[in-house]
C-alpha cells in the first residue's frame, strides 16, 4: 500500500517536472523547422523502441518514447506549428541510443533528436535550464559555471612541471575537474608515467551543448580546445569521461586520435603492474562509451586483470541508461534519478563495487541511493597499484 502511495507521489512529481519545461524566449519563432527528411521517414512507427526506451518506462506517455519523438519531429517537418509543448518530449531523451540498437528499420533516433533540438534552438524554443547551461559553457568554459582554475586539483609544483609538448594529452572534462577531482588526480597519476600533459586552458568538450542543440556555440568552444591540442603537438587524446570521449571522437571537426581511459589502460596492462584484489565487482556500460562507440571489452579486460567481474542483468548493447545523459539530469532530475534506480535493479547480488567509466554515470548511480558503492574504473586501478 505504502509502495503504491509512493509510486503515485513520484508520478505526480514527474508530471510536474515535465510540465514546467519553462520556455526561455521566442526570438526565432518564425524560423522554419528543417531536417533531413529521410532520416525521419525511415521510421515505420512499428514501436519496437517502445519497450526499451528508459524514459518512457518511467514517464508512460507516448511522447516520452522514441516513436513519439519521431512522430512529433515528423509533424513539425510537415508544418505543424512548433511551440514549447514539444519540449517535454524532445528535451527528455537521454540519447542513450538503445532505440537505435533495437530499431529494425535502421533509424538513428539520437541523431535525429539532437538535430531537432538544434532546430528548436534556431526557432527560439529552449528551456531556461538549457539557456543557463549554454551561458555557463560560453562564459566560464565549463558546464557548471565554475570560476576556479580547472587544474585546481594539481599542486603548484605539478602544474609548473607539466610538459609544454607531449604526444599524449589527458582531457580531464568538466565533471572530473570540478565534481570528482579525486578521479582526475588518480587518472593523472596513472598517466603521468607515460609523459602525459594537460591542455593549458582546457574548455568544456561541448558534449552538453551538442546534445541540447547549441551547435553554433559549440563550434566556437571546440576551436579553443583544438588550437591548444595543436600547440601541444599531441597525437593521442586520452579521456576518462564517456561524454567527452564520444564528442571529441565523433563531433570535432578535425579527426582526432581519441582513446578512452579504459582502452588506454587495457593496452598498457603489463606496464601498470597491477596486483590482484580479492573483490567481486560489476560493470555498468556508459551509453556513450558502449552503445555509441562499441567499447565493451577494454573496461572488462582491465577489471578482470584486477578482480572478479560479475555482469549486470543487461549489458553491452542492451545496457540500460543511468539517466544522466542528453541534458536530462539537469532538465528533469526526478525522471533522471528514476532511470538510475531502475538501472540499479540490474546489479547482481554479492558484488563489492559497481564500476563504471563515466563521471555522469557515477553521479547518477550514486545519487539513486543504492547500497553498493559506485566508483570509477580509475579508482579500482588505483587500489590495485597501491
Amino acid at each position, binding site marked *: 500500500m505504502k509502495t503504491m502511495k509512493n509510486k503515485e507521489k513520484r508520478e505526480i512529481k514527474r508530471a510536474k517536472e515535465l510540465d514546467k519545461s519553462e520556455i526561455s524566449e521566442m526570438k526565432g519563432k518564425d524560423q522554419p523547422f528543417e531536417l533531413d527528411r529521410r532520416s525521419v521517414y525511415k521510421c515505420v512507427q*512499428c514501436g519496437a523502441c517502445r519497450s526499451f526506451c528508459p524514459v518512457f518506462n518511467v514517464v508512460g506517455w507516448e511522447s516520452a518514447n522514441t516513436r513519439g519523438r519521431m512522430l512529433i519531429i515528423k509533424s513539425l517537418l510537415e508544418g505543424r506549428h512548433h511551440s514549447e509543448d514539444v519540449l517535454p518530449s524532445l528535451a527528455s531523451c537521454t540519447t542513450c541510443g538503445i532505440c537505435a540498437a533495437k530499431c529494425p528499420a*535502421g533509424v538513428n533516433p539520437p541523431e535525429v533528436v539532437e538535430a531537432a533540438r538544434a532546430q528548436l534552438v534556431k526557432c527560439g524554443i529552449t528551456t531556461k535550464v538549457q539557456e543557463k547551461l549554454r551561458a555557463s559553457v560560453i562564459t566560464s568554459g565549463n558546464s557548471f559555471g565554475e570560476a576556479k582554475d580547472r587544474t585546481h586539483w594539481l599542486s603548484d609544483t605539478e602544474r609548473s612541471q607539466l610538459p609544454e609538448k607531449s604526444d599524449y594529452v589527458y582531457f580531464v572534462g568538466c565533471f572530473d575537474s570540478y565534481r570528482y577531482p579525486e578521479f582526475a588526480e588518480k587518472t593523472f597519476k596513472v598517466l603521468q608515467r607515460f609523459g602525459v600533459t594537460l591542455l593549458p586552458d582546457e574548455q568544456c568538450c561541448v558534449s552538453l551543448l551538442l546534445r541540447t542543440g547549441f551547435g553554433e556555440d559549440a563550434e566556437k568552444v571546440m576551436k579553443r580546445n583544438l588550437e591548444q591540442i595543436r600547440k601541444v603537438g599531441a597525437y593521442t587524446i586520452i579521456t576518462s569521461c564517456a561524454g567527452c570521449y564520444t564528442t571529441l571522437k565523433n563531433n570535432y571537426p578535425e579527426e582526432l586520435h581519441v582513446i578512452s581511459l579504459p582502452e588506454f589502460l587495457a593496452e598498457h596492462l603489463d606496464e601498470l603492474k597491477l596486483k590482484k584484489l580479492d573483490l567481486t565487482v560489476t560493470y555498468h556500460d556508459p551509453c556513450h562509451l558502449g552503445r555509441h562507440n562499441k567499447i565493451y571489452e577494454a573496461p572488462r579486460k582491465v577489471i578482470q586483470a584486477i578482480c572478479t567481474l560479475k555482469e549486470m542483468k543487461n549489458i553491452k548493447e542492451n545496457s540500460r541508461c543511468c539517466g544522466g545523459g542528453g541534458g536530462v539530469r539537469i532538465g528533469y532530475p526526478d525522471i533522471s534519478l528514476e532511470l538510475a534506480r531502475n538501472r540499479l535493479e540490474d546489479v547482481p547480488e554479492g558484488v563489492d563495487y559497481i564500476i563504471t567509466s563515466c563521471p555522469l554515470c557515477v553521479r547518477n548511480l550514486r545519487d539513486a541511493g543504492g547500497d553498493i558503492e559506485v566508483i570509477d574504473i580509475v579508482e579500482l586501478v588505483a587500489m590495485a597499484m597501491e
Partner: protein
Amino acid sequence: MDITAELRKIVGVRLSVSPSELYCYSSDASQVKGTPDYVVRPKSTDEVSRIVKLAYENEIPVTARGAGTGLAGGAVPVRGGIVLDMSGMNRILEIDIDNIQVVVEPGIIQDALNDALIPYGFFFPPNPGSSAMCTIGGMIAYNASGMRCVKYGTTRNYVRDLEVVLADGTVIHTGSKMLKSAAGYDLTQLIIGSEGTLGIVTKAGLKIAPLPKTRKLVIASFENAEIAGQAVVKTFSNGVIPSACEILDRVSLQVLKRYDPKLVLPSEGDVLLFEVDGTENSAREAAEQIIEVCSPLALSIKLAESETEMADIWAARKLVGAAVSRLDPTKTRIYVGEDVGVPIKKIPELLKRAQEISEKFNLPAMKYGHIGDGNLHLVLFIDVLNKDEWDRLNQVADLIHRTAIELGGTVSSEHGIGAARAEYMKAQWGPAFEVMRAIKKALDPKGILNPGKLGL
C-alpha cells in the same frame, strides 16, 4: 460539461490534452490518422468504467489502445474523443499453474508475460512478430497470432475469461476458469477480435501451455514459391505438424542478411523455415521426416546447427518487415495489403498473383508469411517523398485484398480490420456483415466504442 475537469477527477495527472501528446496518439503503425481530444492512462477497472460512463453520458467516442503497434488503425481515434491508453494496466494478477492459467491486465507486453512464465515451464503461445512490444489486450482485441499458430492456434484459443467494461460503464465477466461451458452465448469469443467496438477489456484469464523441451529448425530452399508451396502441402499430408512453417522470398532473404550478416541462410531460391517442437526424440524424428519429404523438391535443405543459430534466425525474421530500409535507405515499408490469407492450397496461386500485381504496377514487393496457415505478409516499400509511388502502392494493396477474397480467403489473417480494411468487410462477409451490425447496435447503441472501425 467540462470533460477535461471530469476526466481529471478520475485519473489526475494521467490525463493529457497537450497538442504534442495528442499527436503521438493519432496513429499506430498503419497509415490511418485521427487525433483524439483527450488521452487518459487508467490504472484500474473502476477508472475505465467511470471514464466510459462519462463518455456514454456525453456521447464521446472512446478508443482503447495498447502499445499502438497495430497495422490497421484499430487504436487510432478516427472520430476524435477519448483515447484510453491501457498500457499502464500491465500487471500479472495471478499465475495459477494448477489450473494452467494466468490472469493478467490488458497492458502487459506479450514477451514480459512469457518471461514471467519461463520459470514455471509454461508459455502463452500466440507470438506475433511484435511480441517484444505488443500488449495482450491488443492481441485479444485483434485475435493476434503469429508464426506458431499452425500448431498452437491463435489468441482466440487461449482466452478463458474476460473482464469487460461495456459501453455504459457496466463491468461484466464473459467466462470463468472452466475449460468448457455449455451455458449460453460465448461472449468471450464475441469480444475477441471485436477491436474495442463492443467493450473494453480490463482483465483476461488466459490458458497457458507447457514449454516444449526442445525446438528444431529445418531450413530449405526451393527454385520458386510454387514448389515451396508443394513442399508444405506434402509435409502436412505426411502427418507432420510443424510448430511454425514460414516462407521467405528472395528479397526477404536479402533484407534478413543485410539486417544480420551472420545469419546462416541459403543464398538462392525461396526459403521455407520449418520449426518442430516436442521432446528431443519427437522433434528430431519430425525434423528428419520433413527433410526426407522435402528433399526431392528442394535446392538445399539443412537442420539449424545450434540454438543460437535458430534464435538469431527467428529474431531477425520477426523484424524483417520493418528492416527493408536497410536494403535501400530511400525506401520505407508501408503497411498496406500486408495481411491477406487464403486456404493453404491456394498459397502458390496467391504468391503468383501478388507477383504479377506488383510487376504490373512496377512496385517491388517482398513476400514472407505463415505459409503453414495460409497467411501471406506482402511487404510494399516506397519512397515516401514520391506521390506517384503512394498512388501505385494503394492500387496494389486494393488488388491484393480483392484477390484474397476471390480466392476464398480473408483481407486480414491476424492484424485486424481497423479503419484500413473496413471497406472490404461487406465484400468478404455478405449478409453475415448485417449480423455484425446488429450485434454492434445491441451492445453499443450510441456508437461510442471505437467508432469508424470494422466498417460498422
